[in-house]
């Protein structure tokens, strides 16, 4: 029996992620303040979310509703009774000196999204925002620090996965699915740059094939899935080098700087807080009633994973197209409305939506553009029946996106209809006459020289002619076969 040297071993990363998502409720988690979207600092506050003496929290029912929807989307076991805890620590962004969160009795557990098991889903409140003046950009060593309490008390749902992810790419993909799923439910803006979706990752490595878990480190606050992937790659690389050199992984919390690619320690295990959790005596337990559960269930739309699967299965769309139509659900809705409006070929229509339409509207919701799903369906049908050429159809779509309307009317008013044989005859004659050398070449056997003549016809007709038809007419006239 031989012992494998550390440097010869191959390692497998084990990754779990923890996501905080700001809920899009009307008011904050425990008070009546409206949520803030970039208002002037400290204008969305009240005695409760400022932690004034004597104030008490009251749980936001809509936040519980959204959290139940999330738990159901992941097929979790919803706790018949869950409670809030106080998580105690001092920091200026935490007005009460504790965060109201959930601890050993969370709202939901044991779910699944795709191939990844969800460990738990719980509700809590967001902290306020600190701004530090001075060189360090951190509170220690700052000249002055100011607090904006607008964000303080925003409802958060924390979602923790089991360590089921095996590569940085898998982690990023899972994150995107989770993001699309939450976005589809309309429970959050899920904008990572704005912080309405925040991702932390726990990562450890182990010799490939082993079942035990190694010591993990935590990567905090990645603000895009690309950075999550890169941060994980960097950290896995660091852990592998460390272990191969005979070192030991230390449990710590790390920050990944996407600019430099550097990892820096935020705190080690020794510096870990004792949060002194205890049940929040100011709040009553969350006991979801049958009515609450039914309401949450009824509010759940078809989720991206299910839709992608259905589009692939029922409409035989390619996986990538189906995924795009599911992740950008507004495109998917537009596509399905277009399908419903006519009986066009789903694949062709899907291509038009995901390529041509998407290119023209960018990230906007097609429902906000002027083009109607039925209009796009009719346009695609006209291409199919060759009433309009593909390139002319692109022009028609430009017009539909800009002004709306009916494709046939646009074709008519702009004269974009397919050039018919009688119109083409003269144009083809002229093109042959003007391209004598090409004619010579064709006759000499260089069939591809026909392109120059076809091109001339296309220029003349502004793309309205059918290429095959034109080629046939040219060959006929110059006697080539």
């Amino acid at each position, binding site marked *: 029996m031989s012992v494998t040297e550390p440097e010869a071993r191959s390692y497998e990363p084990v990754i779990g992620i923890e996501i905080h998502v700001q809920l899009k409720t009307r008011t904050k988690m425990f008070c009546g303040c409206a949520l803030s979207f970039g208002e002037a600092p400290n204008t969305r506050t009240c005695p409760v979310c400022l932690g*004034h*003496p004597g104030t008490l929290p009251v749980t936001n029912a809509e936040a519980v509703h959204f959290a139940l929807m999330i738990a159901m989307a992941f097929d979790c076991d919803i706790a018949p009774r869950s409670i809030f805890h106080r998580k105690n620590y001092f920091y*200026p962004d935490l*007005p009460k000196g504790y965060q109201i969160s959930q601890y050993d009795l969370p709202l939901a557990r044991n779910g699944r999204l795709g191939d990844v098991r969800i460990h738990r889903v719980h509700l809590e409140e967001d902290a306020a925002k600190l701004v530090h003046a001075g060189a360090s950009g951190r509170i220690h060593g700052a000249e002055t620090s100011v607090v904006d309490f607008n964000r303080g008390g925003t409802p958060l749902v924390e979602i923790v996965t089991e360590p089921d992810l095996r590569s940085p790419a898998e982690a990023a993909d899972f994150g995107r699915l989770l993001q699309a799923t939450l976005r589809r439910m309309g429970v959050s803006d899920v904008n990572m740059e704005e912080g309405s979706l925040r991702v932390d990752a726990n990562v450890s490595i182990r010799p490939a094939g082993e079942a035990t878990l190694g010591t993990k480190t935590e990567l905090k606050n990645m603000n895009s899935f690309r950075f999550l992937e890169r941060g994980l790659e960097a950290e896995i690389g660091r852990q592998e080098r460390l272990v191969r050199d005979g070192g030991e992984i230390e449990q710590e919390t790390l920050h990944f700087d996407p600019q430099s690619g550097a990892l820096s320690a935020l705190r080690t295990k020794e510096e870990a807080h*004792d949060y002194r959790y205890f049940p929040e005596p100011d709040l*009553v337990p969350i006991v979801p009633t049958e009515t609450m559960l039914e309401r949450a269930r009824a509010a759940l739309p078809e989720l991206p994973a299910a839709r992608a699967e259905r589009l692939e299965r029922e409409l035989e769309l390619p996986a990538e197209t189906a995924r795009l139509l599911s992740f950008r659900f507004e495109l998917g809705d537009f596509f399905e409305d277009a399908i419903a409006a006519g009986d066009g070929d789903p694949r062709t229509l899907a291509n038009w939506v995901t390529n041509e339409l998407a290119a023209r509207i960018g990230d906007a919701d097609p429902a906000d553009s002027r083009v109607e799903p039925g209009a796009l369906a009719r346009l695609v049908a006209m291409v199919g029946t060759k009433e309009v050429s593909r390139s002319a159809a692109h022009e028609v779509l430009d017009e539909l996106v800009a002004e709306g309307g009916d494709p046939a009317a646009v074709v008519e008013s702009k004269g974009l209809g397919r050039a018919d044989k009688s119109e083409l005859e003269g144009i083809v004659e002229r093109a042959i006459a003007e391209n004598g050398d090409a004619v010579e070449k064709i006759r000499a056997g260089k069939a591809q020289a026909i392109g120059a003549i076809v091109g001339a016809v296309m220029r003349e007709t502004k793309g309205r002619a059918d290429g095959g038809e034109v080629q046939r007419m040219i060959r006929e006239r110059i006697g080539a076969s």
Partner: protein
Amino acid sequence: MTGLLALTAAQQAELLRAGELSAAEAFDFWRARAEDDDLGAYLWVADSAPDDAGHLPPVAVKDLFCVEGVPSGAASRILEGYRPPYTATSVENLRRAGAPVLGKTNQDEFAMGSSNENSGYWPVRNPWDRERVPGGSSGGSAAAVAAGTAPWAIGTDTGGSIRQPASLCGIVGLKPTYGAVSRYGMIAFASSLDQCGPLTRDVTDAALLLRHLVGRDPCDSTSLDYPEEVRMPTAERLDELRFGVWGLDEEGLDPGVADVVRRTLGTIEELGGGVEEIELPSARHGLAAYYVIAPAEASANLARYDGVRYGPRSGDGDLTAMYEQTRRDGFGDEVKRRIMIGTYALSSGYYEAYYGTAQKVRTRIADEFRAAFERVDFVVTPTSPTVAFRLGERTADPLAMYLSDYFTVPMPLAGIPAVSIPAGLSDGLPVGFQIAGPAFDESRILDAAHALEKAIGFEGVPRT
């Protein structure tokens, strides 16, 4: 106008309603009385009657109730100068019912204490003997009512903070059922125990004030709808009622206090009531459980006093230094002691042994009361093991001070209501008799207290 001093709040309310007394007259009379207080009972007295003073006499309010624009700081230096931007629901309810705020009364800092000597400002003196304490933590409210510088008052009770000072000052003090009165706007000590209640000259006044305090408040999730309007007490007999006596054999119970309590038990029997001993085996561990749970909750409740948003700020430059200096300067010794006890009790590795065990004791105490109320209508005890003690007598011995709450701590742990009524004198100082009943049974408790009150005929409130 001096005739008002001889009237109970309910009697004054009659005059106000009948138009024989104007709200402004009543307010001015009591304002002048409060201004003349020389017991240290007030931290702030209202300048003038509010425009909307109604048909109830003005009410003295413990400093920890937030009143918009009025200094409200739980008698702590850490809230010196703090004027809340909002008003506590209980105070607002009273104002709407017609009782304006007369003044803010002194108390033990953050309601932590049994003698009022822990006030961040000055101690309160007992009107029966100025060298003695009025009890605490609602000592200012109790002393003001006893001395006739307030017609009635509200306080808060966490482990006895209404009943014990009521007992030591010879007045009536009621701790309602947990959840009966909104806690919104009460500067928190221990959230799962704190409850607002009346301190009054007699039982009828307590019922009248309670009637206007109770009710569910959307701002307090732990508040509950009160099942029915609080009844004005009328009973003069105690026929068919069974009273379970607890704690008469406890060592540390002053013999003079025990005598008054035994005499009161005799009165109960004379009024037709039955008296029997009952067992509450876990109640004797009430103090131990209380001094884990209350400090644990307090350690979190008081974390917000960090100098960042309101109140005085000390320390310079460094964040940690600011936190430490602000809290070092702002909190008194007893508050610091309890924050440390609570922080320790919640620490990882100790939580189960302390907080977990204390919660189990709490549950057991509640169960034992529930079982007791299947046999008896009420549980009766001495309110305080002793009469009012001398200023400074127990300040050096926190444990002796904590024992003041021995008989009053089990009820808030069980969430049930209890009243203390003056039952007689021992060495010329008042002795309180405590009557506890099942949750939301205040009307029946007060009815029984009313019958006893009439029979006892306690006199001699030292109005000056």
